[in-house]
């Protein structure tokens, strides 16, 4: 039991750590930051004194969204050039998240669309938005509700790969599924 508690605690602390804002997000010298950086940090569910914790049905304690063996930990959908079609290989990921939202009606999610660097920044912003919208549309068909999902775009502004070749570009034609406490 003690070992399980330790494991739960460790997982929770890891989760808390990973949701701490990175240095990049701190201290933008701007006013009216609004929602920026105001997301609450997850508190580890520290138990006071010995308590028993029933195992959940899957036998995994902690957050299924963070469990590397759970498909819900997969968060990226990649696209072909000039395309917003969700490819076969990414449909299981999209449907798993749709199911998760269906089962957790209070859960919110943001789908962040991205585009490669070629061409107009604003047009690329719209292309990224179209990819995010395509993912949302599929999730709605699979049971998620529109209010649960906000789609936004980073266009070419936040590239995951910074090279100037097809390998980088294909990495950046992407939509990411992001939960509030990620």
């Amino acid at each position, binding site marked *: 039991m003690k070992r399980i508690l330790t494991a739960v605690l460790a997982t929770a602390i890891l989760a808390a750590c990973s949701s701490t804002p990175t240095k990049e997000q701190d201290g933008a010298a701007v006013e009216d930051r609004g929602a920026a950086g105001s997301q609450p940090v997850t508190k580890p569910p520290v138990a006071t004194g010995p308590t028993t914790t029933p195992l959940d049905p899957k036998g995994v304690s902690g957050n299924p969204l963070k469990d590397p063996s759970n498909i819900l930990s997969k968060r990226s959908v990649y696209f072909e050039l000039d395309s917003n079609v969700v490819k076969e290989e990414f449909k299981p990921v999209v449907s798993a998240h749709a199911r998760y939202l269906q089962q957790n009606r209070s859960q919110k999610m943001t789908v962040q669309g991205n585009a490669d660097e070629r061409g107009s920044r604003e*047009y690329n*912003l719209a292309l990224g938005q179209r990819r995010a919208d395509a993912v949302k549309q599929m999730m709605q068909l699979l049971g998620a509700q529109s209010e649960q999902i906000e789609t936004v775009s980073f266009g070419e502004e936040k590239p995951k790969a910074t090279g100037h070749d097809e390998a980088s570009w294909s990495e950046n034609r992407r939509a990411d599924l992001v939960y509030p406490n990620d």
Partner: protein
Amino acid sequence: MNPDANWWSHRPDIRIKLPAFHQKKMKNLKTILLPCLLSLGLFLLAQNASAQLRIEVVGGGATQIPVAIAPFRAEEGLAQRLTPVVMADLARSGLFKIVDAGGMNPVPHEPEQVNYAQWRARGADAVVIGAVTKAPDGRYDIRFRVMDAIKQTQIAGFVYFATESQLRLTAHKIADVIYEKLTGDPGVFATRITYIVKRGPRYELHVADADGFGAQSVLASNEPIISPAWSPDGTRLAYVSFEQKKPVVYVQSLTTGSRQAVAAFRGSNSAPAWSPDGRQLAVTLTRDGGSQLFLINADGSGAPSRLTQSAAIDTEANFSPDGKSILFTSDRGGGPQIYRIPVGGGAPQRVTFEGSYNVSPRHSPDGRSFTFIQRNGSRFNVAVQDFATRQVQVLTEGGVDESPSFAPNSKIILYATEVGGRGILAAVSSDGRIKQRFTADVGDAREPAWSPVVNK
């Protein structure tokens, strides 16, 4: 003298037309005081002196007007000498050949001191002379004349009263007068530009003089900033910031530094474009699904009104100078092309037909043409299309040009490009002949926009 014809007054706070040499009666000169919003406002915001931009001319006009600028009397003692700035402005434009003014004895400061035969021997078609004196109120009295070396007459003459911090701006104003009198087009040396600098993870919105000097950061963020756009009166910038983890449109005052989110709806908010009266912005919103054009009030009040209705991408709006129509990018026909829609309602019409990728339209201030980016194979170039003839001219040969915008005289197009893997700003004359490069000390420069001419 004639007090009503050709009286100009604009910043720095006073400009008075000088009478021609033979009508030398100064007592009728009027003074008109104007607030110097431009200098004051920006200096309030001054942060650390930022990386300066340097401009090099990489192509020249076919014919250049030979002009000599004699050093102004008593300018050596100034914190900022005037004639070197005037000469640099004119030379950089590519339209002038600066004739050596050294070794003249005496150096002419007044019309009667001009030895026209000597200047003609040096090849000068025009000679600029001037003098600086300290006025009783502590400001500088700066007067200059443009003399026609062939006809031996005065082309223009003005007096400025300027404080020390306005000396550089005064020099740009003088260069504007010379440019206008000798080319027939308004000068744009006394205007400003804005652009984004990216240094590592840091993004800064900069405002600099049109010659790249005096660059100041007016916004710094660790999240991207794109699409800055000048308000028609030059006192505000609209832009897109990602600081809220999504694109949101802000309007920021350059005089007070205050800023306001004016489009922060569900989804993405981007591509702000000012209406000519400065009251409205056309923006791209995704709140109703898809990327569509909406009109919002520039102060963020009221509800957006939808301008386009399509299942496609509609973005990158830009108002015509008369405010009646909007150019925008849409892929409703397949690939992205440029369309025009009446602001009052009506069906959009496609205006670009050459090539499969035409984006980022911006009207020329004279309303006759628009600039845009055209993809040719894998290259993205600055192009201009004439509204009347529909003729397209591709102006650049680079590979990754972006974000073109006209100077207020419709003669120069400022854009972003890349050299050696670094983002830089560049400019090309609207006939494609003269090219300039702006190089910054560090970081990537991108997303430039040229200010309007203010208070002229």
